[in-house]
């Protein structure tokens, strides 16, 4: 009796152990198992005229087709259909992922073995990683598109050999969003021009105004330290890594530490101490816990969507210490595709100023092509929620102010994550600025 019972339970444990083994193995072994399934191998080599099927993979809402949104009729234009009408031999399969993270995982899983779409969208956040494999992507350089994009946009997508691996779609030039009634309460200028003038200057000036605001109201001036850091660190050149050797210099670069010190000195009073994208952060948009936020064009929808009842959000045409960019994407053409030439044509057509202006009209993705800023669809654009701010012209100014970003190498994100974590620790109060920096420093030393 007890023997059979033991046997039974033993078998059970063995089974459970095998189960554990499988799961432990699988969770890291996923990458080998994924096979190519979505390749468009249906058609012959893409000579023009012959029927070709192209797959286009994007994420979020690039503004290409109405299928990106749950409701019908949100978009004015259907760019996918337009291209197919212009090129009757081409059939496009549009595959959109909900989030950039999903797309990133898919991209890096299939970049090596093959199986990517003919045209793949990539985001600025993973560009440093993509750059390490730039030889697996097509060079999109062409004479007609030489000056199509903002200088910074082209620079960020050009690899060490001078190959352009991405055709820029949108950019995220940052301005300062603020709440006029809160500024008024604190005795500060509250009209966009006045605020722009007030904040025109370097970060020291920004923090001075912030201190004045926080002293007057006892509330946070900006939303989170990490958001401000994003703006500050992107202006540093060099930042974390040496452009020539690729070595990590974050800890030796006095600028990085100085920016960290400057920010952590300001945060105790001036930050609302929220983590970006947390529920409290969203709530703070309408609760008045903070008065400003660094905002790229796509942030406008986030604010209006989460604080629909506030009426005093506005945008000032200014950014501390020059310009800043947050977000933006490129279209790439993986060399493993079956119809590389046709795919290039599609990528370059979609990123032409005319099309990108339509995408902006559809989904508010701000073009990276200066010519598009002249297009009435962009130039005359205003935002009702932000008290009719002239966003079309305003962000054109902000885009012009953005300098090409400093070299970002293999370790950029790990270093940046360590420092952002450090800032969040200071915000949450788990560490003071000095010990938090030491923790980050030891993490960064462990890299490489």
């Amino acid at each position: 009796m007890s023997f059979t019972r033991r046997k039974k339970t033993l078998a059970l444990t063995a089974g459970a152990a095998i189960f554990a083994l499988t799961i432990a193995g699988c969770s890291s072994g996923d990458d080998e198992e994924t096979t190519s399934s979505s390749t468009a191998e249906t058609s012959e080599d893409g000579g023009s005229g012959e029927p070709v099927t192209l797959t286009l993979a994007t994420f979020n809402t690039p503004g290409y087709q109405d299928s990106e949104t749950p409701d019908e009729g949100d978009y004015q234009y259907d760019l996918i259909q337009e291209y197919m009408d212009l090129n009757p031999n081409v059939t496009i399969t549009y595959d959109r992922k909900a989030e950039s993270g999903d797309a990133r995982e898919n991209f890096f899983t299939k970049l090596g073995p093959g199986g990517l779409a003919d045209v793949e969208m990539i985001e600025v956040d993973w560009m440093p990683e993509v750059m390490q494999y730039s030889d697996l992507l097509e060079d999109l350089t062409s004479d007609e598109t030489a000056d199509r994009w903002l200088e910074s946009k082209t620079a960020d997508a050009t690899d060490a050999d001078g190959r352009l691996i991405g055709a820029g779609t949108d950019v995220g030039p940052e301005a300062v969003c603020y709440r006029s009634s809160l500024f008024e309460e604190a005795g500060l200028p509250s009209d966009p021009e006045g605020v722009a003038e007030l904040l025109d200057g370097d970060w020291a000036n920004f923090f001075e105004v912030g201190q004045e605001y926080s002293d007057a109201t006892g509330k946070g001036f900006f939303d989170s330290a990490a958001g401000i850091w994003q703006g500050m660190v992107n202006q540093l050149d060099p930042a974390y890594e040496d452009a020539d050797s690729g070595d990590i210099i974050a800890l030796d670069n006095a600028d990085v530490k100085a920016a960290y010190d400057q920010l952590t000195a300001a945060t105790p009073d001036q930050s609302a101490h929220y983590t970006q994208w947390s529920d409290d952060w969203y709530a703070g948009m309408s609760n008045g816990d903070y008065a400003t936020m660094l905002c790229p064009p796509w942030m406008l929808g986030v604010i209006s969507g989460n604080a629909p009842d506030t009426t005093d959000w506005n945008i000032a045409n200014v950014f501390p210490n020059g310009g800043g960019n947050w977000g933006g994407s490129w279209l790439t053409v993986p060399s493993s595709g079956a119809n590389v030439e046709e795919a290039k044509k599609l990528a370059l057509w979609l990123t032409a100023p005319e099309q990108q202006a339509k995408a902006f009209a559809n989904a508010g993705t701000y073009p990276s092509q200066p010519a598009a800023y002249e297009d009435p669809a962009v130039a005359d654009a205003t935002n009702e929620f932000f008290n009719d701010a002239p966003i079309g012209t305003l962000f054109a100014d902000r885009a012009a102010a953005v300098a090409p970003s400093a070299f970002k190498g293999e370790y950029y994100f790990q270093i940046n994550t360590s420092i952002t974590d450090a800032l969040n620790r200071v915000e949450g109060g788990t560490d003071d600025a000095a010990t938090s920096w030491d923790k980050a420093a030891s993490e960064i030393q462990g890299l490489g």
Partner: protein
Amino acid sequence: MATTEVEPRPAQYTWRDRLGRWDVKASPYLYIAPFFIVFGLTGLFPIIYTAVISFMDWDSIRNTGEFLGWDNFQYVLNDRQFWIALRNTFSIFLLSSVPQVIIATFIAAMLDHNLRARTFWRMGVLVPYVMMPVAVALIFSQLFGDTYGLINHWLGYIGIGPIAWHIDVIPSHIAIASMVNFRWIGYNALILLAAMQAIPRELYEAAAIDGAGKARRFFSVTLPQIRPTAIFVIITSTIGGLQIFDEPRMFDTTGTGGPDKQWLTITMYMYNTGWGQLNFGRAAAIAWLLFLIILAFGLLNFWLTRRLISSDTSGSK
């Protein structure tokens, strides 16, 4: 003679008998073979492959690697984050699995009674299990907001200051454990209930005649009788608990376990290393360490549960 009499007998039966015996002995293996073949392909191969990669600086995109020896393991074992992740995993595991199994047993015992609308209640406990973990995490993240969360709001009424769910270590673990428990209690309760239903009612009657009260019947009849199922539930919840991923990952929006890694678990650490940093060699080393930990812990747990419940049985007999 004895020898000549015995010898023809096996010859008589031989081939039918042998075939029959062979059938009895071998066919079970044949029937379970497909599982093990599939397992070999989808389970064993990745495990071995993972082991190989764990000794290399692996570039999954170019499918090339450089042999490193024990470097990856050395790095992981020297990494502060690994030990924090280990601490968090065990802490969340204890905070979830222990109450989970106890409450599930209790609920199962309640459902084992003659309730009105039995099926309704029984299905009711399973509803949380049907919900997507991501949806559960979304709801709970609203509840556990640091400033504007509902729970801190309620706690305010009874005079307890706001708890920093996303900053302090233990509160964050409690919040995550509550998500896990919400999801799994009902599921485990149903499995235990099934075991309880299989207990012969005569045992309860006999115990009742012997003068055993409700509590005594539960501890001396129910618990010993559901032992194999309880062990199964405990082992699966151990494995699940040590591999906890969805809930802590969804606990904040960055999914990296908090600024001070307050709720980073081993699987998240592995994921962040593999997919976040694209360092698959190191992630493979973590996967192997996790496997060894689970194996050791599963065996320990098995041994403990056996001792605990069987000593109960022998005591009552």
